[in-house]
């Protein structure tokens, strides 16, 4: 952790100059239909990509922490994906992140959780950030696991489901949503935090932000660049194999009852007919 205290920062504000890494994923546009490529059994990612919604919350949180620190420090976006993922990462840059690092390598295609977490951990190790933020889960594969796997590889504490995050005194303190309320969890920095969408209302990029994003550093790195062994990434490094894919079962015929005053009777008739009451 960089322990350079800034002079002239008002009391009460933690004066750490923080480097925050945010792991972001490009996912298919939420409005589009998801398609699975039957031959590779992978998600068809050919259409337009967007930044995973939870990751937008994570970027927002990183920017707020930086701004609360007098706009000092750095917010770095990290992703593993095809080169087109840079388009989605640019939205994070347009929001205000400082630079983007994309690990893109043909040998990384088809990475499962184990392989993805390996490559990301390698990329993160080069950055030695004070705080690593994740979105809670991705909109496309909904694993909600990657942050745990990455934290384990980096041997860092991890807090998930963060609905509120405070950085003070070299610690990350988060409120975690639970079924009946919330827990407050604290971890010493550097730490990994996965945020929920309740944590903030993300900003939208301004025109200046969008124009400026093009000029910010955007590095595309190969597996070799991040010191990753090719055999441990991609399909070769994956421990799982997708055998078959099936469409979710249809819900069967459903009937919609508009309440014109007789809805209760109609529901009762339905249940009686099926001998459910």
């Amino acid at each position, binding site marked *: 952790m960089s322990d350079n205290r800034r002079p002239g920062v008002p009391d009460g504000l933690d004066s750490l100059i923080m480097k925050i890494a945010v792991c972001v994923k490009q996912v298919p546009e939420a409005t589009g239909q998801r398609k699975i490529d039957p031959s590779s059994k992978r998600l068809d990612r050919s259409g337009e990509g967007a930044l995973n919604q939870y990751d937008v919350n994570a970027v927002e949180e990183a920017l707020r922490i930086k701004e609360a620190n007098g706009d000092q420090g750095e917010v770095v976006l990290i992703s593993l994906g095809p080169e087109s993922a840079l388009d989605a990462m*640019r*939205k994070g840059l347009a929001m205000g992140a400082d630079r983007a690092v994309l690990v893109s390598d043909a040998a990384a295609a088809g990475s499962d959780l184990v392989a993805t977490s390996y490559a990301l951990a390698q990329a993160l190790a080069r950055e030695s950030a004070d705080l690593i933020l994740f979105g809670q889960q991705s909109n496309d594969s909904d694993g909600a696991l990657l942050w745990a796997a990455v934290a384990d590889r980096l041997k860092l504490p991890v807090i998930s489901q963060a609905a509120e995050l405070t950085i003070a005194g070299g610690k990350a303190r988060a409120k975690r949503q639970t079924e009946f309320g919330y827990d407050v969890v604290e971890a010493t920095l550097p730490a990994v935090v996965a945020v929920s969408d309740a944590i903030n209302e993300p900003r*939208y*990029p301004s025109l200046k*932000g*969008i124009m400026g994003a093009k000029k910010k550093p955007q590095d595309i790195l190969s597996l070799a660049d991040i010191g990753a062994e090719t055999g441990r990434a991609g399909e070769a490094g994956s421990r799982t194999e997708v055998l078959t894919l099936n469409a979710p079962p249809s819900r069967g015929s459903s009937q919609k009852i508009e309440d014109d005053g007789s809805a209760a009777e109609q529901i009762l008739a339905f249940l009686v007919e099926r001998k459910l009451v």
Partner: protein
Amino acid sequence: MDFTFDPDLEEIRTGVRDLCSKFPGEYWRALEPSTYPSEFVDALTQDGWLAALIPEQYGGAGLTMTAASVIMEEINASGCNSGACHAQMYTMGTILRHGSDEQKQHYLPKIASGELRLQAFGVTEPTAGSDTTKISTFAEKRADGSWLVNGQKIWTSRAEHSDLMLLLARTTPADQVEKRTDGISTFIVDMKAALTAGTMTIRPIKTLMNHATTEVFLDGVELPAEALVGVEGQGFKAILGGMNAERILIAAECIGDSRWFIEKAAAYSNEREVFGRKIGANQGVQFPIARAYAAMEAANLMRYKAAWLYEQGQAHGSEANMAKLLASEASWAAANACLDTHGGFGFAEEYDIERKFRETRLYSVAPVSNNLVLAFLGQNVLGMPRSY
């Protein structure tokens, strides 16, 4: 022709859509009939969208006409109304092209930041109508070089929400000039000063849609010599360039409206069942929507051509006008198809269709009546007899 997908434009579209998503139908409905959408305009200004055409050296984004038009299109396609603010984007063009260095240094950065709003354009007068050369608002040059302005403007939109007005006034009486387009000059008017001095009065006009339009009375408005933009007597030509930019942007707004109507209509026709089938299966419902779509796509080609010519610095007057003509016709066809498709529901406020219907209707008449576009094409391009 190059129709390659442009990722830069797509980023602009996404950015505008993100912003507009904070201003849904409920927001616009609550403003009816005549409250100005200040929060919406402030958000656009703050995020720099209205400064798209101002060069970077003056604090703007220095975007192309195509990109600027995409901003307007996306606003209207999101269900919002650029009519409230489009003039802030293009009115400054007259200063940019014809203003002195001092005027550019003084005004453009402040317009870019939103500190100064220049979104009132005083051209139309009650008696002159579409015949702009007949305007009677007169600016008299005084011995010390300053000006004294008397007259009346009508349909000066957003005058109550603007700090500056670009004003067109006669500086030489029409009977003393060789060409009737001569002797007209352009001024930049500090409206706040004139209102404080009591020499300017603004009266709102209630209209079909929420457009913040007004009539403006100028009774001895005093302007310093530096208020003149460009060459004295050559103001008519100076504003024409700006008007072409305006037409390209308005065409894009109509394309945006068309998209909104067509999407809504197609979706509803796929959903609503009457007589045991989706209404969209009836060609009487389907074809008007498909026809409007074809008209929109065709108008869109003219809009991009006009923008391209503008960017190349080539003559683009007839293309800009044709784009506005075709796009306003397409959006009106789309509006009617959408209203018809929704049957009675289209008339209910909560669907926003009747609001957009009223809003898009304006563009067949303003900023120039489609008849005048046809008359221009007929006589100036095709050499037929003159009607104006």
